[in-house]
C-alpha cells in the first residue's frame, strides 16, 4: 500500500518535472544561491523525518516480535480464564491428559508437547550511580525437556548446549568453590544475554570473555542462587529473545510455583491447531482450560504496538504540520525575493501554471533532500536493540526489540516528506501564480 502510494507520488513529481516548462535548473540555482535558507529548511525536514523513521522502526520491531513468534501448528493451553501465562495454573494430571490427545503429533512415540512454567521474577541489578537499588523483572521459563521444547517452538541454539537432565552443575566447574551450591544451568535468549551483560560491573567487564553479552560459562544471580549460562538461543526478533530457560523442577522449587502455567501442543498443521483449540475450548470436559493457537496468542500481545502506532501517527501529523509551516515560510520568502523574476518569466510567455509547477517543485525538492537525509539517518538505527513491553488487555511481557527499518518505513518517510513539501509549497506557489507581470516588475 505505502510503496504504491510512494510510487504514485514519485510519478506525480516526475510528471511535474516533465510538464514544467521552466527548467528545473532555474530552481536548483536559486536554491543553491540561498543555500543557508535551503539548508536550514531541509535540516528541519531531516529532524522530523529522521525521528519518525526511528519511531516507526521501533514499532516495526515490536510488530515483528508479535507476528513472528509462535508456530501456526501449536496450541498454547492455559488455565481457564487466564489471559496471560503468568497468572495461569494447570495441574500435572491435566497436562498429562491433554498431551495424550490424538490430535497431538507424536515423534518416536512421544507427544510433541512442551510443559512449561513461566514466571516473572525480580532481580536486583547493580546499583546505579545514584546509589538507588532497583529491581529488574526477568522472565523465566521452566522447561522439562529443552530439546523437545525447542522443537515445538521452532527454536535452535546459537551457541552452547541445552541444560542437563539435572539442570545444575558444580560451582567448581565454573571457577567457583567446590563447596558452594551447584549452579543452575540456563539457556538465555540473545536479547536478555545482552541486557544482563550490559549491567555487569566494571571489574566483571574487565575479565569478561564477551563484553557485549553474557556468554557460555558466565554466571549471574537470580533469587538465592547463582546461575550459569550453558547456551544462547537463536531468538532475535522473537519474544523468547528476552527469556531465560532452565529446568522446570528447579525453577518451581526456587520460586514456589509447583504448577504448570502453560502447555504447548503441536498439531499436524495450522488447520489441526484450529481444530485442537476448538476441541479444548468447547468439548474437552476433563479440565477447564483456555486454548489459543500460538500465533494468535502472540498476536494478542500487540496492544502496546497499536498504542505506540497511534502515538506515532499523532506525532507525525503534528510534526508534519510544523514542517509544512516551515517550508511555507521559506517559500513565501523565496517568492517575495523573486517577484521580478516571476514578472520576467510571465512576460517571456510562461503560463501561470508553469510558475505554479516551478515553485511547487522547488518546495518539494527542499523537502525531499531533507527527508532523504532523515531517512538515511533513521536507517542507521536498523538492528539497534531497545527494551520495551508488549501487552494484551490483561497481560504482557518485557521484550528486547530490534529496530527494523523496512521498505514500508522508508516509503512512508519519503511519502510524508513529499506531501509536506507539496502542501507547504502550494499556497506560496499559488500566490506566485496569481502575480500580474507588470505589477511584479514595477
Amino acid at each position, binding site marked *: 500500500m505505502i510503496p504504491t502510494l510512494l510510487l504514485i507520488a514519485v510519478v506525480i513529481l516526475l510528471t511535474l518535472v516533465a510538464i514544467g516548462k521552466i527548467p528545473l535548473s532555474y530552481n536548483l540555482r536559486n536554491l543553491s544561491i540561498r543555500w*543557508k535558507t535551503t539548508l536550514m529548511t531541509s535540516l528541519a525536514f531531516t529532524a522530523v523525518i529522521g525521528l519518525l523513521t526511528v519511531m516507526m522502526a521501533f514499532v516495526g520491531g515490536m510488530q515483528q516480535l508479535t507476528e513472528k513468534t509462535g508456530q501456526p501448528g501449536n496450541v498454547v493451553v492455559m488455565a481457564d480464564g487466564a489471559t496471560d501465562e503468568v497468572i495461569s495454573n494447570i495441574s500435572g494430571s491435566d497436562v498429562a491428559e491433554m498431551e495424550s490427545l490424538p490430535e497431538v503429533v507424536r515423534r518416536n512415540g512421544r507427544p510433541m508437547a512442551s510443559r512449561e512454567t513461566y514466571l516473572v521474577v525480580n532481580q536486583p541489578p547493580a546499583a546505579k550511580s545514584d546509589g538507588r*537499588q*532497583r*529491581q*529488574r523483572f526477568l522472565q523465566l521459563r521452566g522447561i522439562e525437556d529443552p530439546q523437545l521444547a525447542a522443537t515445538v517452538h521452532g527454536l535452535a541454539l546459537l551457541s552452547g548446549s541445552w541444560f542437563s537432565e539435572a539442570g545444575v552443575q558444580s560451582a567448581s566447574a565454573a571457577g567457583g568453590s567446590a563447596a558452594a551450591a551447584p549452579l543452575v544451568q540456563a539457556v538465555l535468549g540473545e536479547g536478555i544475554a545482552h541486557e544482563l551483560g550490559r549491567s555487569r560491573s566494571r571489574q566483571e567487564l574487565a575479565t569478561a570473555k564477551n563484553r557485549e553479552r553474557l556468554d557460555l560459562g558466565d554466571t549471574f544471580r537470580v533469587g538465592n542462587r547463582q546461575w550459569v549460562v550453558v547456551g544462547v538461543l537463536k531468538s532475535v526478533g522473537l519474544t523468547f529473545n528476552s527469556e531465560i530457560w532452565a529446568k522446570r523442577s528447579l525453577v518451581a522449587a526456587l520460586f514456589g510455583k509447583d504448577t504448570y502455567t502453560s502447555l504447548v501442543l503441536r498439531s499436524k498443521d495450522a488447520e489441526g491447531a484450529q481444530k485442537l483449540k476448538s476441541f479444548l475450548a468447547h468439548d474437552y470436559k476433563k479440565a477447564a482450560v483456555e486454548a489459543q493457537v500460538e500465533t494468535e496468542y502472540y498476536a494478542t500481545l500487540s496492544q502496546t504496538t497499536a498504542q505506540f502506532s497511534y502515538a506515532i501517527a499523532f506525532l507525525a501529523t503534528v510534526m508534519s504540520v*510544523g514542517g509544512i509551516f516551515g517550508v511555507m515560510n521559506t517559500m513565501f520568502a523565496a517568492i517575495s525575493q523573486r517577484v521580478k523574476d516571476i514578472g520576467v518569466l510571465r512576460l517571456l510567455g510562461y503560463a501561470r501554471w508553469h510558475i505554479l509547477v516551478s515553485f511547487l517543485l522547488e518546495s518539494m525538492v527542499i523537502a525531499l533532500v531533507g527527508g532523504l537525509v532523515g531517512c538515511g539517518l533513521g536507517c542507521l538505527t536498523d538492528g539497534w536493540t531497545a527494551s520495551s513491553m508488549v501487552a494484551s488487555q490483561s497481560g504482557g511481557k518485557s521484550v528486547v526489540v530490534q529496530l527494523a527499518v523496512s521498505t514500508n518505513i522508508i516509503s512512508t518517510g519519503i511519502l510524508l516528506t513529499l506531501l509536506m513539501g507539496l502542501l507547504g509549497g502550494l499556497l506560496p506557489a499559488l500566490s506566485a501564480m496569481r502575480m500580474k507581470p507588470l505589477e511584479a516588475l514595477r
Partner: protein
Amino acid sequence: MTYLKLIFRNVGRNPLRSLLTAMVTMVLVFVVTVVWSILFTLSLLTTEKSQNFRAMVTERWSIPSRMPYAYATSLSRGGARHPSDARPTDWMSWQFYGGTIDPGKLTRESIMFCIACEPDKLATMLEGMDNLPASDAAQLHRDIVKLKAKRQGIIVGHNHLINTNKRVGERLKLTGIASFKGIDLEFEIVGVFPVGRYDSLAAFNRDYFANELDAYTTRHSGRKHPLAERNLSIMWLKVPDTATFNRVAAQIESSPDFANPAVKCETAASGISSFLEALRDLIWGVRYLLAPACLATILLVIANAISINVRERRMELAVMKVLGFRPYQILVLVLGESLMLGVSAGFISSGLTYGVINWGMGGLHFPLGFLDTFMIPKAALWWGPTVGGAAALLGSFFPAWSARSVKVADVFAKVA
C-alpha cells in the same frame, strides 16, 4: 519603550511570516509540552522523598506479588518485634482483584482491576489524596463514609464510569477472571475518585473480598480458592523519614515471620522505577531524541525566518545605522523581535495545551504500564514561553549578529 514599539511594529510588518513562524513554534512547543509532561510525571513518581513518604512491601521474587494476608498485621507494625523497633506512621493493604463486566468479551474497556483495601486509608495513604482541592477532598471524604457503611460499595475512577456506562448509585457486577475466576462480586457504586491519576482505579472494602473468599470455600465443599491463602498484593507503609524507612525495611526483610514467601521492602519511588525499567530505552528515546529533535526544529525554523527577515531589511538596518543606531541596539532589536515571537507563541501553545488537555479532555490518555492518564502540570505554563524564547534567542543569534554587522557603505553601494 521605543524599542518595544519598534519590535511590535516590525513583527507586525510581515504578518504572514510572523504567523507562520509562530505557528511552527506553537505546534512544536505543543509536542515538547506533552512529552515533558509525561516525563515530568514519571520523574515525580520516581523521585525519592526524604520525609513522610510511602514504602511498599511485596513478595521478594515473584510477580505478581502474593503474600499471605496473615502478614498484614505484623507488616502494619513494620515488622517491629521489640518496643525500641521503628514503626510506620500509617499503613494500607492492597489485595488485587480482576473482573469483567462482560465475561464473553474481554476487552480493555470491559476488564476492571480493583483493589480491596481499608476504606479509611484511601484518604491518607493514596499518593496525592492529601493535597486535593478542598471540594474534591470533601467529596472523597463523603464517598469513603459511604464505602465504610456499604460493605458492597465501590469507588471507581472516571474511566470505569465511562467504560461501564454506569453512574454513582447504580449496581455493577464483575465476573472474576484469570486467578480470580470463581469470585464474582456485585457492587454499588458509591463514589468516584477525583479526576486525574486514579481514573483507572477502583477500590472496595476488603471485608467483602474476605467474605467472598470464605463463601467460595463453602460453595465448593470445603475446597479453598487458589488465592485464599495468598492474596495480599502490596502492603503500603508511611514512614516519617529515610532513617525510619531503613530501619523498618531491615526489620521486615530480616524477620523470620516473612520467610515463606520472602518479602522485600522498598520505597514507592523505587518500586515504580523498577516497573518502568522495562520501558527504560523508550523513555530514553523520548527524553533524548524526540524532545531535542522538536527543539532543534523550532530553532531551525526561527533561525530561518529571522535570517530571511534580516536579509530583506539590510537597507533599513543600514538607514538605522545612519540615523545613529549603535550595532548593539540593532542586535537587541532583532533578538527582541524573535524573542517576542517565540515567547508569545510558546505561551499560547502551552496555555492551550494545559487548558484543552486538562479541562477539555480530562488528561492525556496514554496507557504506560500502570499509568493511564497524564495531566499537564502547571509548570508547563512556563515551559512553553521558556522553550519558545530560548529557541528564538538561539535561533536568531547569528541572523541578529549579521544584522549588527551590516556595513552602511556596502548596502548603499549595492543600491547605487
